[in-house]
């Protein structure tokens, strides 16, 4: 089976240096190294496991800045076979509607059985792009997947969708869009051979002009419907009390602390 995974390079939160640019309050992507969005790695891991079990290949699709190939190589090193990237200066500052339109337009030109996306990204955090793509492409939308069970003969897929009380079993024909969760399993570390092999894998890089947008819909930073008006660091946390007692004693003190404040 052929699986497309949406991946996005995001600033490495472990670097601790993420910031907005002072002039336009957009994320300063040059300030910190980029990594593959963690939730997308879970989606990729799930996709790789599916192709290992059922045969086929994983293809990456991304809309991102000019340094994205470097980050996408890391996803290729995990085992994806190839990738498509849309990068264009005019897309900087795109809102989620633009992103959705561009990705949907790219996906119209690609064949796949399943389209996997991470639940959200650690930079924008909107979490609506996958649903938007499913809507534009008319794909079944299976969210919060904890388990993915394809039936390649019947051309259908079952998903265990996490709910408040357990999980629901959804079934749909393929192709379908599935939003992955961390319950699908920890992403693998790329092997050294995977890293070497990633260098020669095809990464198809396109500008916006290469993307067949429907009805010439306007996209990009210039038509963004959202803007960041300001940003503030949260106030420093008040003094913290750390209890370093054996478990039972620690639990007793925590209960006492909460009870004193009538929290419990």
């Amino acid at each position, binding site marked *: 089976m052929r699986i497309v995974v949406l991946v996005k390079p995001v600033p490495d939160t472990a670097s601790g240096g993420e910031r907005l640019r002072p002039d336009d309050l957009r994320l300063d992507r040059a300030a910190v190294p980029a990594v593959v969005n963690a939730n997308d790695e879970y989606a990729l891991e799930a996709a790789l496991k599916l192709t290992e079990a059922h045969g086929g290949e994983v293809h990456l699709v991304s809309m991102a800045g000019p340094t994205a190939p470097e980050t996408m190589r890391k996803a290729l090193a995990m085992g994806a076979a190839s990738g498509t990237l849309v990068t264009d200066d005019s897309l900087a500052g795109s809102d989620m509607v633009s992103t959705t339109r561009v990705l949907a337009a790219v996906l119209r030109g690609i064949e796949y059985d399943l389209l996997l996306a991470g639940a959200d990204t650690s930079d924008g955090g909107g979490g609506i792009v996958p649903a938007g793509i499913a809507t534009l492409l008319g794909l079944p939308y299976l969210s919060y997947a904890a388990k993915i069970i394809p039936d390649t003969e019947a051309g259908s897929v079952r998903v265990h969708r996490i709910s408040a009380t357990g999980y629901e079993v959804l079934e749909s024909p393929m192709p379908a869009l599935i939003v992955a969760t961390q319950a699908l399993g920890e992403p693998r*570390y790329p092997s*050294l051979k995977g*890293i*070497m092999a990633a260098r020669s894998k095809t990464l198809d890089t396109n500008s916006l002009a290469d993307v067949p947008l429907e009805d010439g819909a306007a996209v990009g930073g210039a038509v963004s419907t959202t803007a960041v008006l300001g940003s503030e660091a949260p106030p420093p946390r008040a003094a913290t009390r750390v209890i370093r007692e054996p478990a039972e004693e620690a639990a007793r003190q925590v209960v006492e602390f909460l009870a004193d404040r009538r929290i419990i």
Partner: protein
Amino acid sequence: MVSSTPNPEPRPTPTYRLTEDQAALRDAVRVLADERIAPRAAEIDRTAEFPWDVKELLASHDILSLPFPEQYGGLGGDLLTVCLAVEQISRVCATSGLILAVHELASLPLLLAGTDEQKDRWFPDLAAGNKLIAFALTEAEAGSDVAAARTRARRDGEGDDADWIIDGSKRFISQGSVADLIAVFAVTAEDDDTPRRDRLTCFMVEKDMAGFAVERVEHKMGIRGSPTAELSFRGVRVPDANRVGAVGEGFSLAMRTLDRSRPGIAAQAVGIAQGALDVAAAYAAEREQFGKPISDFQMIAAMLADMDAGTEAARQLLYKAATEIDAGAADAGRWSALCKLVAGDTAMRVTTDAVQVLGGYGYIDEFPVERMMRDAKITQLYEGTQQIQRLVIARALTARQH
């Protein structure tokens, strides 16, 4: 592209940075070491058990395949890349870093002098990490004086392809008790008049050959998870197909092996030093005394600066040495001795200072620096003591005067 000047022929420019591949492989090993090996390091030290799980991890991520040519399933990594990997693993766990260093060391006789048949036979399993290999040169009475070995191999019968019978014992053999294959250096000279450098021959002994036994595993000060074994050979019959290199070539093969393997130990030492420096710097920034972080005190700050300067200097000498050896430098022996000498001494000094920075906390096993200090000591001892490194360097110097 618009350009008015003709495009000059691309020329290889000598680079003083790691290549993209080298940096990418190093970073991948670093992440794996930090996330998967570091959490095991204290336990490996405490239990003194060989970390089979770490060996599996290194195998499944192709790290053990680094030193082997691509045609045998290896990554064909150059010496510098192997060193980068050993360094990154040793930064969190010296025992684990040694798994790769020994794998490389013990495979070198085959790489340098093995026949195509021998490589076909053993390299695929070694590159895949299905099998481990050890290097058995040292004996109880033949440490620095390699040629004084007493383990003997004699032909059983006439002809150039007769089997060999090996008798004797080897001591301080890293991973000797967990290896499937052992490169054994034995005396094949038939009389005492044979020049010392023509006395030895190298053989691959397989662990299930009759007469081979692991006599005991040493209790050590550091690298406690790496089993250091005493091996005995009682009439072990070894086919001539297992002989590596020519009869009498063993001493020269052992020396050429060490010329290439010592940087691996230097890499282990640089890794240990960096690991200790990282812990000490983080501790000094957090630990408050007299109302401020101890890193604000000049005596501590100066120690940290010296530790960093020493570690970086050792690292750069190592990278230069590995690059020179990879390039086939005529004085490879000098480079490998230089980097092992400097890196080993640096690791000892930096880890000792790290314990000092942490004070009482550095002396207890709540922090890893006491382990790193114990681990560092071995890098001044094995694959030639620091005294032997100086001897090699001085001889290279003297030779230049003629």
